[in-house]
């Protein structure tokens, strides 16, 4: 893998590696995904989340030129997504499918030799060595793939995806079946690839993984539900709140919280627990703390509520489920 090649792939750091506009794929009457639009920059790690059947894998296959879109347009690694550009696009990308799809009778090295040839990689032996080192499998090169565990096969598939020195790397559930240490290794590899300017398009069900490695995420449920940085999405969907716990119920919480700067409302959540809606924690938190101290309250805890990407995801998917139920 050449270093820092892709960050300046077209001489413009941060330019668009993937540009998708109104992309739709139908199989007969069934809609796989519809009217999907987004852009991904070079060197960005882009998470693509969604429930089973949301169209994530079909989107990857479409952008990878394996299947043709029904409508819409896209550019992949700077090349228009058209049937006649299939070879050229596939020379610049790599896809690691969810199932490793290795030749089990062949050794790890033989599998990689085959794919180095398919990518027409210059100096294939060196490429294979580097790819194996990148996934910590250099000592298993001679092992038949059929003898490897699921996790090791997944790592071989990842090494295979690196052979073509891709500008855009599509990873479909790359840590599925991996133990925590191996998953962490994959995350570190993704970080390393990002530093080299490789664009990573990551589909995953593991929301903590997306939050950990992705610069931005999109949530797809046939249509694109939302897109943005994980913290942006949290702010968009959830009001900021302070959770306050006191030893005894406050005598007059309305008087105490009312009129404080950046406080927009409050409600009691059981005895001795209050949830205060705020607009800016940097202003509200000190003000609330001072008010509680002046009031002589026995404060057990003051904390800003933390919503995870999982909360965002579940909120959006639940909305879809409710909307569907309402229609039927």
């Amino acid at each position, binding site marked *: 893998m050449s270093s820092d090649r892709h960050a300046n792939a077209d001489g413009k750091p941060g330019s668009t590696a993937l540009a998708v506009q109104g992309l739709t794929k139908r*199989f*007969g009457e069934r809609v796989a995904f519809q009217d999907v639009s987004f852009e991904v920059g070079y060197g960005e790690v882009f998470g693509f989340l969604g429930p089973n059947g949301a169209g994530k894998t*079909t989107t990857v*296959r479409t952008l*990878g030129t*394996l*299947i*043709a879109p029904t409508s819409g347009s896209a550019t992949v690694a700077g090349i228009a997504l058209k049937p006649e550009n299939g*070879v*050229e696009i*596939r*020379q610049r*990308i*790599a*896809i690691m*499918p969810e*199932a*490793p*799809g*290795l*030749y*089990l*009778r*062949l050794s790890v090295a*033989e599998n990689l*030799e*085959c*794919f*180095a*040839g*398919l*990518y*027409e990689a210059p100096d294939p032996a060196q490429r294979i060595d580097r790819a194996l080192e990148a996934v910590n499998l250099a000592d298993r090169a001679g092992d038949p793939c059929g003898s490897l565990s699921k996790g090791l096969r997944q790592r071989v*598939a990842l090494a*295979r995806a690196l052979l*073509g020195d891709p500008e855009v790397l599509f990873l479909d559930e790359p840590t599925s079946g991996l133990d925590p240490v191996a998953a962490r290794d994959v995350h570190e590899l993704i970080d390393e690839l990002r530093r080299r300017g490789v664009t990573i398009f990551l589909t995953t069900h593991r929301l903590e993984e997306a939050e950990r490695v992705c610069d931005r995420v999109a949530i797809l449920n046939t249509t694109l539900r939302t897109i943005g940085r994980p913290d942006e999405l949290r702010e968009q969907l959830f009001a900021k709140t302070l959770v306050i716990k006191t030893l005894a119920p406050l005598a007059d919480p309305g008087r105490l919280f009312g009129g404080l700067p950046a406080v927009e409302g409050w409600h009691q959540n059981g005895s001795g627990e209050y949830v205060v809606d705020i607009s800016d924690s940097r202003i509200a938190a000190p003000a609330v703390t001072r008010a509680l101290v002046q009031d002589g309250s026995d404060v057990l805890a003051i904390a800003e509520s933390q919503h995870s990407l999982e909360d965002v995801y579940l909120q959006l998917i639940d909305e879809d489920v409710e909307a569907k139920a309402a229609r039927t």
Partner: protein
Amino acid sequence: MSATRIRAMFQKELREYRRSGSIVATMAILPIIFAVEPLIQIFNLPASSAATLAGKDPLLYMLGIPALVPAALAAYSVVGERQQGTLEPVLTTPIRREELLLGKALAVFVPALVIAYAVFALAVASIAVFAASPVASAVLRTGPLPAQVVFTPLLAAWSIWVGTAISARCNDTRVAQQLSVLGGLPLVVLAALIAFGVIHVTTRLTVVLGVVLLAVDLRGWRFVSLMFDRERLITGTKS
């Protein structure tokens, strides 16, 4: 067209054959069974019956070998990879469908050719040694040799493209293999008609049939490539 990609696919296929003893054994055993029965008949012919062989080319019966040996392997080539989940990763690479199919076809073609010629050579040698001398002279006259040399690769290629076409459209390996063997039967019938003197092989017929088969084989590659639908093979749905 990329020779590197074709070679990569070709080498991968050959490596897989080598690792699977049953594939090699099946390829080798079938032609031997095919050759044994006519050879025994020839060995048992008395010297006086040599004249009855005039106008017959029993050795050309072995043209059934290149027609049958590659069929099952060719039938596995696409649907087999699809069923074991290895097709999608290959299709994500820059390989064109023509390159993929040619690499796979060559990997079936080369061993089929080697086996067919080797079995034919063994048959010729054993007839020379074990058959009655006049019978051996009648069977081994020069006439059938050019036909054998010319038709073996052409029939093998035809059988491979028929098998590959079926493989590209079938969803089940077993069905594909059975249909491919059936698809090779007309060629076996043709070989039998030649061997038993119903169709008499002349130089002119050899050349004409050779040219026709060559044209069919070359068109077959393009035709099978058109039948190779990436989307259907990946999703099971027509594009």
